[in-house]
């Protein structure tokens, strides 16, 4: 118990301190500040401009494809880093290299398909 969970103690302490800091800061703020609400003050703050429209706006669905492709290749690099540490060691060699090539090839296949189907065009 002690040895296994002990290493998380620092993290736990940091979480508790962080939560405490947050709570104290906001409570102190609320306790000390004057409270005079006004219609102007209650509008959404948008870089000093008057807000336009409601807060329930649709965002452009096209971003989804980019986010999706980004996640795909970000996750791929998670696999690449540990692989890069071991692939030239004895007992790994060409098979390991080929396997990673297959892995990246399959992912590239998706990108190739997306490119060919003009998903990457911004029109």
């Amino acid at each position, binding site marked *: 118990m002690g040895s296994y969970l*002990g*290493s*998380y103690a*620092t*993290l736990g302490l940091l979480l508790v301190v962080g939560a405490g800091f947050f709570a104290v800061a906001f409570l102190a703020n609320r306790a000390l500040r004057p409270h005079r609400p006004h219609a102007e003050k209650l509008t959404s703050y948008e870089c000093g401009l008057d807000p336009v429209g409601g807060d329930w706006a649709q965002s452009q669905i096209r971003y989804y494809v980019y986010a999706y492709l980004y996640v795909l290749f970000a996750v791929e690099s998670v696999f690449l880093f*540990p692989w890069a*540490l*071991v692939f030239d*060691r004895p*007992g*790994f060699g060409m*098979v*390991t290299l080929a396997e990673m090539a297959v892995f990246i090839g*399959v992912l590239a*296949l*998706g990108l*190739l*398909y997306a490119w*060919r*189907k003009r998903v990457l065009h911004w029109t």
Partner: protein
Amino acid sequence: MAAEVLARSLAEPAVLAADVKLPDIDYLAIAPMLVLFGAACVGVLAAAFVPQRLRYRVQVSLVIGALLVALGLIVTVARAGRAVATAGGAIAIDGPALFLQGSVAVLGVVAVLLIAERSLERGGAFVSRASLTPGSAADRDQAEQPGATEVYPLVSFALAGMMLFVSANDLLTLFVALEVFSLPLYLLCGLARRRRLLSQESAVKYFLLGAFSSAFFLYGVALLYGFAGATGLGALRKAVQAGDGNTTLLFLGLAMLAVGLLFKVAAVPFHVWTPDVYQGAPTPITALMAACTKVAAFGALLRVFTVAFPVGAVDWRPVLVAIAIATMLVGAVLAVTQTDIKRLLAYSSIANAGYVLTGVLALSAAGVAGSLFYLVAYGFVVLAAFGVVTLVRDADGEATHLSRWAGLGRRSPLVAGVFTFLMMAFAGIPLTSGFTSKFAVFSAALGSGQVTLVVVGVLSSAVLAFPYLRVVVLMYLSEPAEDTPTVSLPGTLTAAALAIGVLATALLGVAPAPVLDLAAKAVQFVS
């Protein structure tokens, strides 16, 4: 202290790297799956680069060719008589795995024949884009366009995932396979050419509930890892038998894992998605799900429960017996009240899941063999039945409401005759595969002393015979109405699928011995 560990691991990557061993992979044993996955990847390329007019032919021959090659490889591996756990024990290629993989491949070919049919409806049963708003101009427009050929790589991925699912010997591999075959199915459900709204509803329902059940499954895996410190089925078995771990983790983990698996086999109370999804999905995809997904899900269920959780150490039987009884009764009783043929077949597939569970619960070699045989026999019947459903059409596409089937026997005696035969098989009349398969699972269960299950099974079969025979009565004894739909002439592919399904149903009913023997020889799990 944490900083120390971090510093050490950064300073000496060599120590960590040396612990990594490349697992040995028996490439011949997993070749069937590799072929199918490879074909799916090539299919993605073909969908992007082959000229539009050739795409359909290239894709169909690719997927059917790959399935046949995979089947040949499965037979080769099976003849070599090897049973191995390969890829670091993550994949077990043994008797049940090979039998189930072969079943998925054969049933997959028949399902692809139904999926590839394009003469019943211009452009096939699928549209290109699942997510367009139903009724919008773009959506009406795509209903006139030929369907997308992406359907075929998706089906290949799904079938390859199912093959991996039945041979996965590690809970994480099992989960990956589950997602690999589920995700294409979610999408395929939303691609129906007619009744777009219903189709989208079914896709969303299947996806949300499927994601939910995946979460259950994954949480179960995590808890079992906490219990055993490993995710391999063999290691899990050792930990369960040693019995010195935290049993709370074991029971909770086992329960959640079971929820995930029972959702896929559509057992009560995890069945509610089935009627809606079966009704809304394009009929060929419904056929694929009813035949192949059922094989895959039961294959994994059998393996997980037999290999990892021996009954002597953790007795999960009472719970599964209750679930099997509920599944048979709820499926049978609700099938009686249905007025839509696809929903009727959905409830019948729920009840049939109960019958396969009966075979699983026999916990004997005969039980495993009976379940394997049942899955194959049921797969052929259900593929042919949905094949007939695709033929009965009016101006709005398939006429699935039962009242529209009235008097069909007078107008189209051949199709009505085929459907009658299939209904007889569903009802378990002798000389059809329905009888031999039910006999196999019930006798196995009786041999293991599961009398209650068998009694409930026989009673629910009797109840279930009523809706089947009602359809038959409706087709022959009712007067055809003015608006009784015409039966389309089946195209070559559908005709082939129907012929295979009906022939297999008859053969497995009259001479089931070869397949039964094959199943009986294929009952030994490795881990």
